């Protein structure tokens, strides 16, 4: 018996995915454990292993097409030639409960038709809000493609099959909990242009986003020439990949919902640099960076300042016992923060090795969900690019993020005289709902003491 394979949910926050490549083609057999496809989520590219074995009968989705979790994406059959037309009809209507052997006379969960008021100029028909795992497309659901009535000469009228299968199932839209309305063609345009239409304002009735709004946003977003600019001014539109979309969403949400404040502390790096140099001399095979040392320092400081190792949860504050430090890594596709778990319990050697391994995996987009989810604190270092100070955006739902800058040689005051010192700026961005100014200052003070006297880590 054939069955529909649906876009799997590969992480708790995954809402949709993109098939970046099919590993099997129609007609091929696939075994349990074999990989059917590579699926790109907002975090990583993952291999999708089969839980069943059988014959791939049909692929329903093109590589590159974004598809909601739960949408039918392929047909798996027991044999290479059984009839799958019933199943295909179901896939087109996105039947919520795939019953491969039931006749498609009526699409499952097809909502009732809306009332037909005369001269209705607006009002998309009411549709049920779809839960993330469901795959029922919004009403009106076209009836499954029924076979033509017995042919009469020149008198048949067979209903043409729906084109729903050719398009990805839509994502349940919402903005501030309110449903966002967009016309079908507007949505199609937005997908084509790689726009997150949920952020658009609609000019249609009831705030409906229409094609014109999408087109305007598409040109505006890529810096359309100002009025009066020379005709034919050059620009290029780049579609958003999943990671960029996720970054856009998270950063916006963080800045819009978290009351950020920043506190900066300049520290003297001589002793830390000397410590690293000493390690390198005695342990030449050990590759330790300033960043690794800073992770160790932060881990120790977080143990001493649990208020910073916390999270605002609306009606309470969660204090974590574990110290899981997320380390910002830059990849070609964008920024990702793999997590170093139990950083306070790991030695420097282990920290250095794990961070290196995680960064490599991040660049190859091979991080598993356990490796990039969670984290109680984030460290972001732009020092290697010469940045002397910056304010990082909090990695929600964490309470703090530490921005680390370059080590620079500059004049410093010692006693009442001038000397040449090596300094570095630490800027802590904090969620003021959890961390007050004094708490931030005290944490920075502890960091400064440990950095300026690394032997204190032994305490």
């Amino acid at each position, binding site marked *: 018996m054939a069955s529909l394979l649906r876009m799997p949910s590969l992480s708790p926050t995954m809402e949709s995915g993109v098939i970046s490549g099919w590993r099997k083609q129609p007609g091929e057999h696939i075994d349990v454990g074999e990989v059917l496809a590579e699926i790109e989520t907002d975090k990583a590219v993952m291999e999708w292993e089969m839980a069943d074995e059988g014959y791939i009968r049909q692929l329903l989705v093109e590589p590159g097409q974004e598809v909601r979790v739960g949408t039918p994406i392929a047909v798996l059959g027991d044999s290479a030639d059984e009839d799958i037309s019933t199943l295909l009809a179901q896939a087109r209507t996105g039947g919520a409960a795939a019953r491969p052997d039931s006749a498609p006379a009526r699409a499952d969960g097809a909502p009732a038709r809306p009332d037909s008021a005369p001269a209705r100029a607006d009002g998309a028909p009411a549709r049920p809000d779809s839960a993330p795992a469901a795959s029922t497309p919004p009403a009106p659901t076209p009836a499954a493609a029924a076979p033509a009535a017995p042919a009469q000469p020149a*008198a048949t009228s067979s209903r*043409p099959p729906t084109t729903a299968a050719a398009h990805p199932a839509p994502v349940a839209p919402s903005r501030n909990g309110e449903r966002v309305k967009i016309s*079908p063609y507007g949505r199609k345009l937005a997908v084509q242009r790689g726009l997150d239409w949920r952020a658009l304002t609609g000019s249609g009735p009831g705030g409906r986003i229409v*094609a014109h709004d999408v087109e305007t946003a598409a040109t505006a977003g890529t810096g359309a020439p100002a009025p009066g600019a020379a005709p034919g001014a050059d620009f290029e539109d780049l579609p958003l990949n999943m990671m960029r979309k996720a970054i856009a969403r998270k950063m916006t949400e963080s800045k819009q919902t978290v009351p950020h404040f920043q506190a900066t502390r300049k520290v003297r790096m001589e002793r830390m640099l000397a410590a690293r140099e000493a390690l390198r001399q005695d342990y030449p095979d050990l590759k330790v960076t300033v960043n690794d040392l800073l992770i160790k320092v932060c881990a120790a400081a977080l143990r001493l300042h649990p208020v910073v190792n916390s999270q605002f949860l609306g009606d309470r504050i969660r204090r974590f016992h574990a110290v899981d430090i997320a380390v910002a890594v830059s990849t070609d596709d964008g920024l990702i923060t793999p997590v170093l778990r139990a950083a306070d319990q790991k030695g420097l050697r282990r920290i250095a090795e794990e961070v290196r391994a995680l960064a490599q995996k991040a660049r190859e987009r091979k991080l598993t969900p356990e490796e990039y989810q969670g984290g109680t604190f984030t460290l972001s270092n732009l020092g290697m690019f010469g940045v002397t100070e910056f304010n990082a955006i909090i990695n929600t739902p964490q309470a703090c993020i530490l921005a680390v800058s370059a080590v620079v040689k500059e004049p410093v005051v010692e006693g009442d005289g001038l000397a040449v010192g090596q300094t570095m700026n630490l800027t802590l961005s904090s969620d003021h709902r959890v961390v007050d100014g004094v708490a931030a200052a005290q944490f920075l003070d502890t960091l400064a003491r440990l950095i300026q006297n690394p032997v204190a880590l032994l305490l």
Partner: protein
Amino acid sequence: METQQITYREALNQALAEEMERDPLVFLMGEEVGAYNGAYKVSQGLLDRFGPMRVLDTPIAENGFTGLAVGAAMTGLRPVVEFMSFNFALVAMDQIVSNAAKTLYMSGGQFPLPMVMRGPGGPAARVAAQHSNSLESIFAYFPGLIVVAPSTPADAKGLLKSAIRSPGPVMMIENEILYGVSGAVPLGDHTVPIGKADVKKTGRDVTIVAHGRMSYMVLAAAGVFAREGIDIELVDPRTIKPLDIETIAASVRKTHRVVIVEEGHRFCGVGAEIADQIYSTCFDDLDAPIVRITHTENPLPYARNLEAASLPNVDQVVLAAKGVLYRA
């Protein structure tokens, strides 16, 4: 291509004459079609030319003579039945629905009915409620009937010839107001295929679907749309059933918005079926819901002003077009 400039009425007349000339099995029957040369002169000169065995004047008994035609078709003759107006076809509904529509099927294919039932349908000029019915959707409702509705002289001649030649049965719904309209008709044996729509005007902004007199009305008002800055694309289905949804869909995929104009009523009207088929095939290409402009929900009044208020007009179509363009 060489064309002649003739009226819709003359086009029908030519089609009848040419088909009766071509095939001795084709004959015409109806009220006043013979000696009177037709209530609307569609059959002018045919009795003189073909004689009383080919042109039959019937009594005022639609149910009777329609049944007669069914019987004749069952023997292999090819009757063309004229209803003086399609409203009188209602008297023959049993023969049309129970016999004409179903005999082929119920006889297991033994009795095809190559018959055409034609006449003017829809509102005319102040002929009031009982003489102004648009019956396209009533006939299209039943499997077994083909329904065509030409809007131009060329389509009228071409469709009537195709209808007479088809295995049938065909309901051809003309329009009294259109009988006097002139248009270019190709010379020679001009036929129009059943089941094929026609883009009467191409455009980029909005798809207007209209048949019969409504198609004529919209086409004649092309200048009004142009002045409003709306580049309409007019698709005339020509055949109501089987509907050429492909041509309509191709237009919708281009313009992304549709206004359907019909003289008939709204509930279960032809436009409802067309809209449903468009939603099924072109959902992702629509930027706005489909708007239908129809006869209002009342029997058609006799008074001139009330009749006009009950039927679609160009201003309504322009407003609807602006609406789906979000320019209202």
